[in-house]
């Protein structure tokens, strides 16, 4: 036990003396959370639009007032001709144009059918889709407003509720994603590099000749990163609660327990990489390319897994981050308990045990 403590103390000394490692370790999570939180959001707010109102009647004005009132749009100006409209769209600042044809009110009242033309700048397809659907919602809303006065017998109004994230904020989606990504990177890369470093500098040989057993070497290598990662989890959660206004709806102890499990999964992957490689560069590359990319692609936080071709969906199942992402979302956002995530937990446990077994099998107790 005393040997353990001495070893762990030494590991901390390595980390603390290495400024770059420290910066990556604690700077990266904070920077990522802030970047994802403020820069990379899928919500579209204050999109600049133009309106061409050829009708100038009561209905068009009422709809325009509704658009102006919405916080999604900022009506830049009203244009008069198609030529003008095309020019402003080409400049790129304006995301969308709404055209009311002449006799709008008339068509609506007498033919029960009126048209609005919505022209969106689809060079960014995601926000174009989002914006046009906002406009659709606004006109829908206006229609239900006038319907109450003119009674039509059959009517279906879908009542839509966005559960767990009623404001459709981006944060609930990426905070769990960033947590998975950061823990993956920190644990896998740091452990792998720190073990391979000892191989590279020759100190591993000295340790292996000592009575301190190889298994203990591995465990005492992993423990410091477990502790540091838990600090990271805490700082990410603090940031998301206090800076990004994202509450933790579920049990926080459960969240930490599951995070610890995921950290251990990552540590075993790191150990496996270190067992298989002999240079720090290779270990770093494998951790970065082999872990970060699949994590981003297959965890489901950037790209929905349901839309992927079947083979990729199958592959996504072996990515631990996918399961952790589901777990964190369930606890943090939906406020669910353990009964809802036991399956995912079991899968993570399985991956961990598997990695541990093959790492130990491969670990060269004897260096030959």
């Amino acid at each position, binding site marked *: 036990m005393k040997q353990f403590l001495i070893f762990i103390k030494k590991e901390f000394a390595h980390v603390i003396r290495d400024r770059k490692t420290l910066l990556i370790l604690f700077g990266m999570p904070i920077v990522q959370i802030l970047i994802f939180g403020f820069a990379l959001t899928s919500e579209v707010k204050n999109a600049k639009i133009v309106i061409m109102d050829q009708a100038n009647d009561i209905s068009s004005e009422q709809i325009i007032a509704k658009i102006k009132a919405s916080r999604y749009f900022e009506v830049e100006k009203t244009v008069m001709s198609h030529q003008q409209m095309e020019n402003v769209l080409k400049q790129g600042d304006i995301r969308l144009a709404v055209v009311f044809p002449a006799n709008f009110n008339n068509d609506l009242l007498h033919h029960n059918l009126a048209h609005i033309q919505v022209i969106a700048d689809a060079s960014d397809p995601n926000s174009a889709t989002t914006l046009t659907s906002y406009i659709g919602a606004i006109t829908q809303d206006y229609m239900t407003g006038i319907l109450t006065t003119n009674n039509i017998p059959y009517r279906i109004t879908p009542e839509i509720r966005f559960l767990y994230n009623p404001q459709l904020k981006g944060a609930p989606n990426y905070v769990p994603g960033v947590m998975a990504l950061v823990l993956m990177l920190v644990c896998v890369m740091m452990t792998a590099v720190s073990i391979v470093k000892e191989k590279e500098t020759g100190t591993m*040989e000295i340790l292996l*000749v000592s009575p301190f057993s190889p298994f203990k070497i591995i465990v005492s290598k992993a423990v410091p990163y477990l502790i540091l990662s838990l600090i990271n989890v805490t700082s990410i959660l603090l940031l998301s609660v206090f800076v990004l206004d994202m509450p933790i709806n579920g049990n926080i102890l459960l969240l930490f327990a599951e995070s610890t499990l995921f950290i251990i999964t990552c540590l075993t992957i790191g150990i496996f990489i270190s067992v298989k490689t002999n240079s720090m560069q290779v270990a770093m590359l494998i951790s970065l390319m082999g872990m970060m990319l699949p994590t981003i692609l297959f965890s489901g936080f950037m790209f929905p897994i349901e839309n992927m071709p079947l083979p990729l969906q199958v592959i996504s199942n072996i990515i631990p981050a996918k399961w952790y992402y589901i777990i964190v979302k369930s606890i943090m956002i939906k406020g669910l308990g353990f009964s809802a995530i036991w399956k995912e937990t079991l899968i993570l446990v399985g991956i961990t045990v598997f990695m541990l077994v093959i790492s130990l099998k491969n670990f060269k107790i004897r260096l030959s």
Partner: protein
Amino acid sequence: MSEAVIKTDKLTKRFGDFIATNEITFEVNKGEIFGFLGANGAGKTTAMRMLCGLSLPSSGEATIAGFDVYKQTEQIKKNIGYMSQKFSLYEDLTVLENINFFGGIYGLTDKEIKTKSIELIEQLGLQQQAKKLVASLPLGWKQKLSFSVAVIHEPKIVFLDEPTGGVDPVTRRQFWDLIYDAADRGVTIFVTTHYMDEAEYCNRISIMVDGSIQALDTPANLKKAFKAKDMDEVFYELARGAKRSE
């Protein structure tokens, strides 16, 4: 005769078709300084690794401090010290921290570590540098420190793999003073080297060529047997026939 602490009998290591060490048989006595010589690629390091329990022999027998290299590696590890070719202390730890760490790993008590580190730092004259990072020390001092750390737990045997590579003659001499000190305390020294003047410092030496031991005796007897005026000639005479080199 004094007791043998290293005994090998036809110890062999194969890597596929390649026989790195071929049936080496020798004994090293307690307190002896045993020089293990050979050209690059002769199989010295492989042999040494087997003796330290870092590598499992393919065939043959060996006991270290009375323990079997196949079954009792744990006991062997408690009784040996090891210093590799590469400098292998932690450069980003201070001199004291390195001593504390390795002392701790070898299971010394806090009190033992304390007295040892004071003794060690005094012996090496490192009082000024005790709290400096090892990276800032000159190579010669690093090597001396590594050696002292390798024998911190008073092992029965210490294995030194080319300990003085790249070190100037004066420091090498000082290094050998440390080795003699340890030998006087009863520590058996097993050392590989390329420097023939160092070979003269050993009690007995063996010379390996192509994986086998071709000569084993005291430096004086070897010189007589090969009618050579110094160890250089003896070594050259033997190594000339070598078929493999790195």
